[in-house]
């Protein structure tokens, strides 16, 4: 047999295996046509609303004006991003983002952990349940409702807080809390903690309820005081959850937040209340600079995505079985 004949022989089985696999594949698709009809339209919907907008990212690299075709717009490269990084409002908003998210993370976590520990220490289960039921509530109501409640409570004329302080003789006339720009960070942190700490405690309570009761018995035999029990048994059992949740929250530290700042902020405190997403809305839509607004949006997406991915990788390493 010549060499040629051999080389002609060889591909045949591979080819037939390929066609076999392909035909099996088609058979499978045909057999599963109902499943395909059930899923493909939904996937197309997802593609339209999640992936088509990514096409709009081109705007950030072009000088786009409304009414123009995106393809016709002039390429400007990274000009918008360069403007962005030198933009005073942008740097200020980035600061607000980081500060408010950090404050919220710190106080929110501390209050949630404290609530969980105290709840787990008390014996009256009925009381514990009532407190839990009450402290969850703000988690479920909308941010609009929460903002409304606090703007009303803190209103300079007739707000409950001012009214009480005047009655107690602490102040002579109402304070406009949301008119003091520098107070905004603190107010925002307190409000967000109020909204979230009851809900946040659940996960720590779950961690505490997972503690082996034998540990408590052993501590009792050893004559540990209640404080020692909290310090050496309860706290260490919470720490893995605490670290994990904190790591995950770091992913949103730079870019997270919009709704609460948008609703609680006003013209007077905007220097301290405006965050990056609000800037994208203001410049992009209200002022009609689509290209710049999109650049802000891309910065936001890219930074948060990168952070979230890094942070997830760290978290996975920290506790591989959670994801």
């Amino acid at each position, binding site marked *: 047999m010549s060499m040629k004949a051999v080389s002609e022989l060889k591909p045949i089985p591979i080819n037939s295996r390929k066609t076999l696999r392909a035909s099996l594949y088609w058979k499978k698709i045909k057999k599963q046509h109902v499943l395909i009809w059930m899923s493909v339209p939904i996937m197309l919907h997802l593609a339209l609303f999640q992936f088509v907008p990514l096409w709009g990212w081109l705007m950030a690299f072009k000088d786009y004006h409304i009414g123009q075709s995106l393809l016709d717009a002039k390429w400007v490269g990274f000009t918008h991003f360069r403007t962005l990084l030198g933009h005073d409002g942008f740097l200020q908003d980035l600061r607000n983002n980081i500060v408010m998210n950090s404050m919220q993370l710190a106080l929110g976590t501390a209050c949630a952990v404290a*609530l969980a520990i105290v709840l787990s220490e008390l014996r009256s289960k009925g009381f514990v349940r009532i407190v839990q039921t009450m402290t969850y509530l703000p988690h*479920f109501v909308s941010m609009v409702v929460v903002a*409304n409640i606090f703007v009303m409570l803190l209103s300079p*004329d007739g707000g409950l807080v001012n009214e009480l302080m005047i009655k107690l003789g602490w102040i002579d006339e109402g304070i406009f809390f949301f008119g003091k720009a520098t107070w905004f960070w603190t107010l925002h942190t307190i409000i967000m903690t109020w909204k979230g700490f009851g809900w946040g405690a659940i996960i720590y309570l779950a961690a505490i309820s997972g503690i082996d009761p034998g540990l408590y018995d052993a501590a009792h035999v050893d004559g540990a005081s209640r404080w020692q029990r909290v310090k050496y048994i309860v706290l260490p059992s919470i720490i893995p959850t605490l670290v994990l949740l904190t790591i995950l929250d770091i992913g949103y530290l730079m870019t997270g937040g919009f709704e609460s700042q948008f609703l609680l902020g006003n013209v007077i405190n905007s220097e301290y209340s405006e965050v990056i997403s609000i800037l994208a809305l203001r410049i992009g839509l209200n002022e009609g600079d689509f290209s710049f*607004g999109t650049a802000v949006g891309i910065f936001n*997406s890219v930074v948060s995505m990168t952070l979230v991915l890094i942070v997830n990788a760290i978290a996975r390493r920290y506790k591989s079985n959670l994801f």
Partner: protein
Amino acid sequence: MLLHRTMGERIVDAFLYVLLAIAAISTVYPFLYLLIISLNETTDALKGGLYLLPRKFTLENYAYVFENGKLARAALNSVLRTVIHTVITVFCCGMLAYVLSRRDFVFRKLFSFILIITMYVSGGLIPTYLLMKNLGLMNTFLVYIVPGIVSAFYVFVMRTFFEQLPDGLVESAHIDGANDFRVYTQIILWISLPVVATVALYAAVGAWNSWFDNYLYNSRNEKLAVLQYELQKMIQTVETSNSEGGDGVGRRIISPLTIKATLTILVTVPILLVYPFLQKYFVQGMTLGAMKD
């Protein structure tokens, strides 16, 4: 556990009870305060001093809201968007979840991967806004329903549940001649009520509480306003500026203070109505997710 406690521990206990009571009251009292204002006569409420009970009890404020065409309309829109969104979202996410729970499905890996990507990638505000505009969804009711039909999170929650159902269930239905769509609609949905209820509650609370799509896409059409948006517009209004005329409804005098309080309560009540279920399913879901080792 400890059988007897020392005097010191009892004092600490008493202190903790008081602390918790304060925490609990401070979360609930603001709602109560607004309830009191909403049940009080409007000019009287402006004088302040309402802490525990309405001074001049009245249901006028609620009557005003329901008789005000704009607000009644907004309430209807809110209910409609919540119900329609919840039904469609649960059905569609469940359907995709069912398909992805079939282990031999050809595109199982590909579709799951695409879903995961959607959890991380988002086009951002302006490109999404332009898409809605190009699709003709601006100033339509559809913009409340169509863009948010699929959520990767709901799909994964439901898929996890479906995967734990016995395999024989689907197989025997197939043998009896039922196709996958019938298996999903007539068997799977009904025996998965816990997860269906959880996702439905998530979806319903989310839809009820949303206002930003209204602000962004439908602010030019007053007929499409939802309650949360009407409330959002009022946040920064000054309370004492007196007597909003109302759309020619009677001669009621009503101040922004009482309207805001009344609307806030009305928007919160549906949440309170489903609260027992929220607690049961949300808490279960959350702790299960956390404890899954």
